[in-house]
């Protein structure tokens, strides 16, 4: 069916509404990549199998990311008249029991994490069924979240355009095309205060304005989905969970600047995201929401997906464009900015996935609504992947201005197994490590930059007392060294030299002069590199030197690694009183350095031990000790 009029869209929406609230159980499984990594595929199969066996009529949906990845695999069950419950850490066996309960007219509490309040479902029956469960927004993980970009994530079938429409999708495009002029759209984006969510934080409306005024007729739209920061998966999740939101945003952008062709450049490592966005483009085209004469107007817009090929630097906009053009993905100096001279030298509007996903929400609810979220100069929400050594890992969307403390201790629930959180790393290889005594800082562009890090695209990796900050700095330098495209010397050579010095420090062979040299090279690389990759590459080194100087000093002067990580500076022993002689470490030691009789304390041969800490990690009795 081609959607040509508002009433056509209304019909699509009604169809979607029926799919979202059917008169039978609707069971949806979080099946974005992280869910799949936790075993959601097997849970989905078990649900299907059990329902088939019992001939239970239900709607089984493969949904996107529900957010609290820590609790994956997650299953969301809506039973008409009963209510809606989110189940956590599901197993195939648990799935089988769940279906049996549903078939006998029960909404069980086994594995239930919370219930999901729905409008009009507060019946006496549902009060009885749900009693004893907490509403999802009362969980500390969800309490302070505000979902704009992730508004549909996990709630709809990401393949279904009907369900997207039922959640208000395509209303904004309709409004934009039928009631707003391109100029008015740009004005609304400007007034919303939206800033680039890829991490740069450039005012989005201003970028659109510049691009729309640039000379020339042909223009292009690009969605930057080359999410390369390690420890970050927001863009992947948005594409996997709500691809139509990105398409609608890009289409509105195309209309606003007068482009008829858009590209989504997706990172090679994200096959599922590529499948889902491709499918959504196909469906949108079938429905007349992409292609020629969109919504019965004379506006034409198409989108093509381009698969990257494993080069981090292509996340930089000029390198991405060079890659699209078929050359090496190398950056070039700016200006001219792509908004003026981008793909094939034409004005090109390039924004991050999350920026595009915010657009439709802003047009529908109005710029004042968006500007009212967050703080002054930092309007709206941002998505973070809260990962590393934190109790609750997952994808979190917050209004800007929340403090790091609220994020890490509140939403994240603090450290792992009672360990002390030491720092948080934001912004990937371009960012820095912020120490725990600065966790009172609000999460916004200026505060994080002032603290020596950056907001970045949303990676937030928590580190605890067992993380060595020198090792972390070297980890990032290795990353930069491997990903530097090699075009400019400061980045190519500087990263190599910094890496070599950090290696000497970690191996206990550095002198105090090395620290001075390290800092000096870092400053040069920052000042003299061509693109953002090189200019920000020293940040992990500079921020750890600034806040964790004592750890550097311990490595350099005392030849000691306080966190017990750096192999050359530690030794491992087994505490004979704790060791039960279970033999696990003996079997798993990669170099055969552990000896001992069954059920008797084991010992580590110091001549063979490489200090890899495998035994330390796996010992069920915590009998392996690190001598620092």
């Amino acid at each position, binding site marked *: 069916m081609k959607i040509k009029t508002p009433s056509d869209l209304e019909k699509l929406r009604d169809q979607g509404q029926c799919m979202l609230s059917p008169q039978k159980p609707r069971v949806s499984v979080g099946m974005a*990549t*992280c869910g*799949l*990594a*936790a075993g959601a*595929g097997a849970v989905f199969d078990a649900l299907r199998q059990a329902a088939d066996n019992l001939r239970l009529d239900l709607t089984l949906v493969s949904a996107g990311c529900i957010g609290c*990845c*820590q609790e*994956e695999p997650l299953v969301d069950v809506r039973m008409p008249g009963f209510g809606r419950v989110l189940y956590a850490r599901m197993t195939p066996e648990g799935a089988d029991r769940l279906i049996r309960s549903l078939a006998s007219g029960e909404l069980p509490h086994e594995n239930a994490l919370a219930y999901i309040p729905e409008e009009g479902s507060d019946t006496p029956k549902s009060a009885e069924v749900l009693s004893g469960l907490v509403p999802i927004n009362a969980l500390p993980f969800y309490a302070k979240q505000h979902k704009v970009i992730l508004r549909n994530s996990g709630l709809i079938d990401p393949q279904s355009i009907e369900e997207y429409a039922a959640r208000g999708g395509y209303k904004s495009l309709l409004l934009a095309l039928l009631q707003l002029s391109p100029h008015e759209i740009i004005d609304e984006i400007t007034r919303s205060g939206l800033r680039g969510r890829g991490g740069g934080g450039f005012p989005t409306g201003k970028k659109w304005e510049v691009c729309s005024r640039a000379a020339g007729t042909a223009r292009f739209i690009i969605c930057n989905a080359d999410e*390369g*920061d*390690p*420890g*970050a*998966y927001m863009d992947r*999740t948005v594409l996997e969970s709500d691809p139509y939101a990105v398409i609608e945003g890009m289409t509105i952008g195309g209309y606003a600047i007068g482009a008829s062709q858009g*590209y989504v*450049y997706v*990172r*090679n*490592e994200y*096959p599922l995201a590529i499948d889902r966005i491709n499918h959504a483009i196909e469906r949108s085209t079938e429905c007349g929401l992409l292609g020629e004469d969109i919504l019965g107007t004379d506006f034409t817009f198409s989108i*093509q997906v*381009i*698969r*990257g*090929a*494993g*080069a981090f630097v292509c996340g930089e906009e000029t390198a991405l464009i060079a890659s*699209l*053009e*078929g*050359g*090496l993905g190398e950056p070039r100096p700016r200006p001219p900015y792509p908004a003026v001279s981008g793909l*094939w030298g034409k004005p090109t509007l390039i924004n991050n996935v999350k920026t595009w996903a915010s657009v439709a929400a802003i047009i529908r609810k109005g710029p004042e609504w968006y500007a009212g979220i967050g703080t002054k100069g930092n309007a709206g929400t941002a998505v973070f*992947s809260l*990962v*590393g*050594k934190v109790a609750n*890992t*997952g994808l979190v969307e917050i209004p800007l201005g929340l403090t790091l403390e609220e994020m890490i201790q509140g939403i994240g629930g603090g450290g792992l197994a009672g360990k002390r959180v030491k720092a948080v790393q934001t912004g*990937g290889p371009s960012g820095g490590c912020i120490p725990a005594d600065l966790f009172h800082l609000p999460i916004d562009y200026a505060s994080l930059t002032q603290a020596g890090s950056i907001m970045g695209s949303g*990676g937030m*990796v928590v*580190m605890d007392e067992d*993380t060595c900050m020198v090792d*972390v700095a070297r*980890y*990032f330098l290795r*990353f930069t060294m*491997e990903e530097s*495209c090699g075009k400019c010397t400061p980045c190519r050579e500087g990263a190599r030299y910094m890496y070599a010095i950090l290696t000497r420090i970690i191996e206990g062979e550095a002198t105090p002069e090395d620290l001075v040299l390290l800092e000096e090279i870092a400053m040069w690389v920052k000042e003299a590199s061509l693109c953002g990759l090189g200019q920000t590459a020293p940040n992990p080194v500079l921020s750890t030197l600034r806040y964790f100087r004592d750890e550097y000093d311990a490595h350099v002067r005392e030849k000691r690694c306080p966190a017990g990580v750096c192999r050359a500076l530690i030794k491992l022993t087994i505490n004979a009183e704790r060791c039960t002689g279970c033999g*696990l470490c003996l079997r*798993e030691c*990669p170099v055969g350095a552990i000896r001992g009789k069954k059920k008797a304390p084991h010992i580590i041969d110091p001549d063979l031990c490489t200090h*890899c*800490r*495998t035994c330390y*990690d*796996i010992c069920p009795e915590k009998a392996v000790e690190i001598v620092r």
Partner: protein
Amino acid sequence: MPLIAQPDHPPAGAVLARLHQIHSAKGYLPEADIRAAADDLAIPLSRLYSAAAFYSAFSFQPKGRYTIQVCLGTACYIRGGDRLLEKIETLLGVKAGETTPDGMFTVETVHCLGSCSMSPVIRVGEETYGRLKVNLVGRLFKKYRPGEPGQKGVEEQGT
């Protein structure tokens, strides 16, 4: 070169798409296919070759039946991804970048698979495995070796 006039450049993304197409069909980029692709795209061979060599996703050597990608993203690294890699290298007797002599596995490291909440993570072929520990890896690989009794091949599993 084709006789019909070509635009002065191939369409956006065409070079990458063609390289991906060859790579997924053949498992690597054979010389003959690169030459043919350069002709079709009407670009100099040197330009196509340099693009292919720039990206880490493309290999000029045949790969194993399954590529094992060990994630060394930040979250995986601080939760022991490097030790998983060592274990895998020991188990299979090859280093990262190499292929087992029986042609079954190629071991690679990647900078992030975007499944950070499940760290540490590895991907074998199309399947992603999270929350791994060194002592679980051995068992995991058994199901990919054909002919092992009681173990399913990956083809039967689907995703």
